[in-house]
C-alpha cells in the first residue's frame, strides 16, 4: 500500500477525500467533460461505443500498457487489481500473465473486475465480458495529441479521478508547449527518419500520431514521399531511399526491439549509411521504445527527447 502511494502520491491523497471533494466541486474547470464529473452511474463514449459504469470501479483490470500508465498517473492505481503482461510501467503495477492481444475472458473474470480497460477488442473481449456483466472500455491508439489528452481525462472520469486527470493533461500540455517553445517550431529545413523497425525498414509518416508529434517542431519527414493510403501511414521504406534522402536526424523507436535492437552505434555501422548527415553528425537518437509507442502520460518525455535532438542538430539553411 505504501509503495502504491509513493508511486502515485497525488492519487493516494485524493482517494482519501474522494467522495466529498469531487461531490462538492461538480465541474472541474479544466475538464472537457464538465457535467457530473464523478456521479455514478455514468455513461461514457469509448472506442466500443456508449459504456455505462454503475459505481466507482474498485477492481480494475488493465489490458493496455498505455491505460495502465493513465490509471496510475490519474491516481487510480490503488483501484487496479491486475495489468497485462506488456504493462511494465509503473514498475509496481500488478503485472500478470493476462494478454491484451490474445485475451482470455475466463482468466480476466477470475480477478472479479468491476471495470476492464483495453486498447483493442480482440478475441471477443467486449462481447464476452458484457455477457458476464463486466463493463469494458476500449481506449484505442489515438491519432492526435488532443485525443490522447481526452483519453486520459476519460480514464480519470470513469475511475472517479476527473480532477487529477484534468490537472495531469494540463501539466502535460504545459511541458510539451515549453519543449516546443524552447527548441522552436520552424525547423522545416531539418529532415528526419523515424525508424520503427530495421529489416524491413518500417517508418511513420507525418499523418501518424508520432509524425504529428515530431511535426510540432516543423521537421520534414522523409517517409512522407512514400505515403500510400493503404499502409495507414506506416510505409516500408527501401534502404536506397533512406540513404539518398539524407535525413539530418534519425530517431530509433526500435532501440530496444526484439531483433537484436538497433542502438545508434549499430545504425552508424550499417553498410552505405556513413554518407547520411545524421550519421556523420552523430544525430542518431535512441528513444525509449515504450514511451515512443504509447500515447500516455509520459508523452512530454518523448517530446523533450525530440526537442533535445532538434536543438543539438546543426541548423542548416534550406537548400
Amino acid at each position, binding site marked *: 500500500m505504501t509503495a502504491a502511494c509513493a508511486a502515485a502520491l497525488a492519487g493516494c491523497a485524493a482517494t482519501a477525500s474522494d467522495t466529498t471533494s469531487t461531490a462538492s466541486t461538480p465541474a472541474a474547470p479544466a475538464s472537457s467533460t464538465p457535467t457530473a464529473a464523478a456521479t455514478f452511474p455514468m455513461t461514457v463514449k469509448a472506442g466500443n461505443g456508449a459504456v455505462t459504469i454503475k459505481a466507482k470501479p474498485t477492481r480494475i483490470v488493465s489490458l493496455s500498457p498505455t491505460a495502465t500508465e493513465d490509471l496510475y498517473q490519474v491516481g487510480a492505481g490503488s483501484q487496479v487489481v491486475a495489468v497485462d503482461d506488456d504493462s511494465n510501467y509503473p514498475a509496481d503495477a500488478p503485472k500478470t500473465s493476462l494478454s491484451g492481444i490474445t485475451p482470455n475472458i475466463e482468466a480476466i473474470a477470475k480477478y472479479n473486475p468491476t471495470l476492464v480497460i483495453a486498447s483493442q477488442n480482440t478475441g471477443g473481449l467486449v462481447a464476452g465480458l458484457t455477457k458476464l456483466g463486466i463493463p469494458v472500455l476500449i481506449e484505442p491508439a489515438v491519432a492526435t495529441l488532443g485525443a490522447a489528452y481526452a483519453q486520459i481525462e476519460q480514464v480519470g472520469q470513469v475511475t472517479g479521478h476527473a480532477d487529477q486527470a484534468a490537472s495531469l493533461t494540463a501539466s502535460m500540455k504545459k511541458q510539451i508547449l515549453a519543449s516546443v517553445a524552447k527548441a522552436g517550431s520552424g525547423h522545416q529545413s531539418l529532415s528526419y527518419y523515424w525508424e520503427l523497425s530495421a*529489416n524491413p525498414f518500417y517508418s511513420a509518416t507525418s499523418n501518424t500520431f508520432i509524425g504529428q508529434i515530431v511535426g510540432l517542431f516543423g521537421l520534414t519527414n522523409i517517409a512522407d514521399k512514400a505515403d500510400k493510403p493503404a499502409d495507414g501511414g506506416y510505409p516500408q521504406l527501401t534502404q536506397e531511399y533512406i540513404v539518398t534522402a539524407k535525413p539530418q536526424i534519425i530517431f530509433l523507436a526500435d532501440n530496444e526491439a526484439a531483433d537484436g535492437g538497433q542502438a545508434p552505434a549499430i545504425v552508424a555501422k550499417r553498410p552505405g549509411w556513413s554518407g547520411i548527415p545524421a550519421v556523420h553528425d552523430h544525430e542518431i537518437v535512441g528513444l525509449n521504445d515504450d514511451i515512443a509507442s504509447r500515447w500516455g502520460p509520459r508523452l512530454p518525455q518523448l517530446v523533450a527527447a525530440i526537442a533535445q535532438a532538434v536543438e543539438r542538430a546543426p541548423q542548416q539553411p534550406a537548400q
Partner: protein
Amino acid sequence: MRKRIALVAAAAFLAVAVLVAAFVGAADLNPLATAAALLHLPSNLGPLDRAVLFQIRLPRVVLGALVGGLLALAGAGYQGVFRNPLVDSGMLGASAGAGLGATLAIVYLGGTGPGTVPIAAFVGSLAGVAAAYATGTAASRHTVLGGGVATLLLAGIAVGSFLTAVQTFVLQRSASDIAAVYSWLLGSLSAASWQQVTTILPYAAVSSLAILLHGRHLDVLSVGDEEAQALGLRPGRTRAIVVAASALAAAGAVAVSGLIGFVGIVIPHVARRLAGPSYTSVLPLSALLGAGFLVLADTLARTVLSPAELPIGVVTALVGAPAFVWVLRGTSHVGT
C-alpha cells in the same frame, strides 16, 4: 539440343534480370554514371550514390540471386527425392524449424545482437529436417506404407505441424514480438549486405554442387526404389545426400531472407516444362531460373511503390502465380 537451348536461355534470363536490377531503384541514379561506376570507369556518381550502388543495391541483387537459386534448387532436389511434384524447399520441417528458431531468438535472445536470428533460423531449419528425417526413417521400418518416401513426407508434415505449434505457443506468450516475427516470416531482402552474401556463399557452393551432381541418380530413382536398386543405385544413400544438401541450401537461404514462398515449388516445374523431366537439366535450370526470378521479384518489390517497398513474399506469389499458370497453359501440349 533442347536442353542446351533452355540452359542458355535461362542463363540469359538471369543476366538480364541482374542487369535490370542493378540499374533501377529508389535512388534514381543516373544510368550512364551507374554503368561507368559498375565498369570501374571514371564516373560522376557522388560518394553517397556510390555507397547506395555498391553497398546497398548490388549486395541485394546478388543475395536475391543466391537465395532464389538455392530455394529453387532445394525444391527441385526434394521433388526428385520424393518423386512428388507438390514438394517444396520448406518441406520436412525446414520452414517450420526455421520459423521456430527465429521466433525463439527474437523472443528470448532479443537484444543480443543482429546476428542471432539468422543463425537460429539456420540451425532451426536443419534441426527440423533432421528431426523429420529421423522420425520418418524410424517409422518406415514399422509401417505398411513401404518405400519410405511417403512415410518420410508424412513424418515431415507431423514434425512441421508440431514445430509450428511450439512457435505459435512461444509467440502467444510474448505478443509484443508479433510484429518482428511476422515481418521475418514474410521474408525480406531489404537489409541485404555483402556480409550476408559471404556468410551463405560456402553453404550455397557445397549444397549446390552436391545436388547438381546427383541429377542422374534422381532420374534413376524416379523409376522406383526397387528398380533403382536393380540398376545398382543405393536409394537410401542418394536420398540422404540429396535431402541433406537441399536442407543445407534452404537453410542458408532462409537464414538471410526469412521465409520466401513459391520459388521452391514452382520454379522446378517451369524448368521441367522448358527442358523435359530429366533432373540433369531440371536441377541447373531451376537454379538459374530461381535466381533470375527472385532478382526480378525483388526489383519489383523495391520499385513498384518506390520509395516504399512491398514484402517480397507478396510479389513472388502475386506475380509468380499467374505467370506460372500461363506457363502451364502455354506448354500443355508438350506433355508432362
